[in-house]
């Protein structure tokens, strides 16, 4: 036994003690993951209740509950493994980007046909992800065309069905985390999914790097387009005025995850935190909630500066944090086209 411990020391001089790794994982699970999904579940329950109480698209109560629940989702949207992937739950909560405008098309088709699928929560789970989740609800509440299309009674039923479906999905994710996935991350050796603490840390590290990549390349990159062809209408959730807010919320959540992972390496921790602080500072000063400014050179420069500052966080994560954790970059869902 003693020999094994010594060997571990020799092989992994950079990664610290096995005990540290285990404590790091436990901290991420208990202080980052579980609170995040608990917030999502309670905010989603409140959203469904608000839709039941008042389904008018302009209802202040409904819009407030929608924005709270959407905030909670963005705070965990980087945790795309395990319970969020079972039954494609995360896709059902959040289908975006949508380059072929599938969401307005699917919603219009349902409203025009008065599709009776809204009558059953079970049946609603078979509906295209384009007509489910937060981005569909955003169209139903904020898009001038969709929010006035067809019969008011059907739209009301649809809004309630989408909200209830979000609630069901969020509860299912939380239940899975509480019932077994949290324990599985903390004691991976008892599972088929991960072989070791290192593999769990790789999963958490990938959540960080993939989240950063998504925010830089997709949340900012899509509206930026190219200099000759800026694409402000591609900004995320622009109808609800949430584009910049999503960048901020995701950075705040990713910073929390990064700090917990970096507890293993004080040096990486300090540089990472400074880089996050710089990016967040840029978001505070941007004053462009839906990135409309990407179309003019001055505004564009500021959004590009923000994107570059997130690139800097990614560099530090790859160069310092990954090696400190002793894990490889791995593959993620953004690989490919």
């Amino acid at each position, binding site marked *: 036994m003693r020999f094994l411990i010594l060997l571990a020391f020799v092989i992994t001089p950079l990664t610290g003690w096995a005990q540290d790794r285990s404590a790091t994982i436990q901290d991420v699970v208990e202080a980052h993951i579980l609170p995040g999904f608990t917030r999502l579940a309670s905010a989603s329950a409140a959203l469904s209740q608000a839709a039941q109480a008042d389904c008018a698209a302009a209802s202040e109560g409904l819009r407030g509950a929608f924005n709270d629940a959407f905030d909670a989702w963005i705070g965990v949207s980087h945790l795309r493994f395990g319970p969020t992937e079972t039954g*494609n739950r995360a*896709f*059902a909560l959040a*289908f975006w980007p949508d*380059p*072929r*405008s*599938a969401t307005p098309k*699917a919603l219009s088709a349902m409203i025009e046909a008065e599709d009776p699928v809204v009558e059953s929560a079970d*049946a609603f789970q*078979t*509906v*295209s*992800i*384009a007509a489910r989740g937060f981005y569909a609800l955003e169209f139903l509440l904020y898009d001038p065309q969709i929010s006035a299309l067809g019969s008011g009674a059907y739209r009301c039923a649809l809004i309630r069905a989408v909200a209830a479906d979000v609630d069901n999905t969020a509860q299912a994710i939380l239940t899975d985390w509480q019932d077994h996935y949290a324990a599985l991350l903390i004691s991976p050796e008892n599972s088929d999914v991960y*072989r070791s603490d*290192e*593999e769990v840390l*790789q999963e958490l590290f990938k959540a960080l*790097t993939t989240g950063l990549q998504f925010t*830089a390349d997709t949340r900012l990159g899509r509206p930026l*387009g*190219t200099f*000759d*062809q800026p694409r402000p*209408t*591609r900004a995320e959730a622009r109808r609800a005025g949430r584009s910049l807010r999503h960048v901020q919320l995701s950075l705040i959540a990713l910073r929390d995850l990064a700090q917990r992972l970096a507890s293993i390496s004080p040096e990486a921790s300090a540089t990472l935190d400074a880089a996050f602080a710089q990016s967040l500072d840029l978001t505070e000063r941007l004053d462009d909630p839906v990135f409309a400014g990407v179309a003019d050179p001055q505004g564009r420069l500021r959004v590009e500066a923000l994107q570059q500052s997130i*690139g800097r966080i*990614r*560099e530090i994560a*790859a*160069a310092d944090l*990954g*090696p400190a954790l002793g*894990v*490889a*970059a*791995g*593959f*993620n*869902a*953004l*690989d*490919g*086209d």
Partner: protein
Amino acid sequence: MKPLLPAAVALCASLGTGAMAQDKAAVLETYADIAAAAYGDSLITAQRLQVAVNALGTAPSAEALQQARAAWLAARVPYQQTEAFRFGNPIVDDWEGKVNAWPLDEGLIDYVDGSYGGPTDENAFAVLNVVANPGFTLSGKSIDAAEITPALLADTLHEADGIESNVATGYHAIEFLLWGQDLNGHAHGAGNRPWTDYATGDACTGGNCDRRAAYLQAATDLLVSDLEWMAAQWADGGAARNALTAHEDAGLSAILTGMGSLSYGEQAGERMRLGLMLNDPEEEHDCFSDNTHNSHYYDGLGVQNVYLGEYVRVDGTLVSGPSLSDLVAATDADLDAEMQRKLSATMRALGRIKTAAEAGFSYDQMLERGNLAGETLVMGGVEGLIDQTRTIERVVTTLDLDQIAFEGSDSLDNPGAVFQ
């Protein structure tokens, strides 16, 4: 994941020496040989397609159209197996969009059904219809399209206005010209373009039959010349082969990057799961010809080929040699067994989709809302691909290629970063 830059590679310490180094060199050679053979086969089958397309243009008939379609389907078999080379090799990834870009707004090319709609928020040229229009304005520039040439397609129309779905070249543009839109929705059946879309004189349907034939020939000529170029890159002394073998560990990392990125982000995610969850038959990869089951199957086979170091050519001969599998087995036999088992499980799942589709349960039916059997079949493939990616990551770790992967991701968006 974008592949490595040579500069990044140079910073990495070489791990293997002696016998191991020799093994690695031999593994890379097998991989490059398979690439040369598979792109060579893609070229051969594209040349057969070219013969068939020219015959259709010269003497249009139902039989000639059918033969061109059969030639297209055959050409897809070797090409899809090359997709495993894409993401690990920059030279392939930079080029791939010319030959296999997807999905496309086909209204750019030719007439479409009224249900297709008009220009969209994303694409002002979604219904440009080049076949019907010998002149038009594109991004403020007046374009003379009186003569449809390979250069017009490649340099002016492809990705026109900076929009990726303006696909003017490659397999899927040709597929659309041979089959037309699949208007069957979720019902069984592919696109049903009449052969008379290529007929001369009064027999012509759909208008501008001569321009349609010219477009089809230009796109096919372009495909052939693009494949000629890529096959040459993998021949002895070719740029792709040289880049791969310049550094052994980086070369191995490129192989695994290609396997993992195609399996997970591209095939399991973008192509299979998303289409299923959108219930959208337009999300089929080969949506005009209803050949998606084969497209997925041969993608999976390409990944397995690369790991096992084996490829069956279109003339039936086997190309094989020392493989990544051998290399992994020498370090960790259990891990090699796990990798082989998972690749086989994926091929069985993709094989189920293929056999069901060939027996009449087509891929677009599988995508229909509430079709549980279809969902189970497609998700079986998705889960196999995700599961094998986890083991590919273990192989990266076991072969001590992790640090190379880091350098690779570091150079992803900021090539200068590695010099800091």
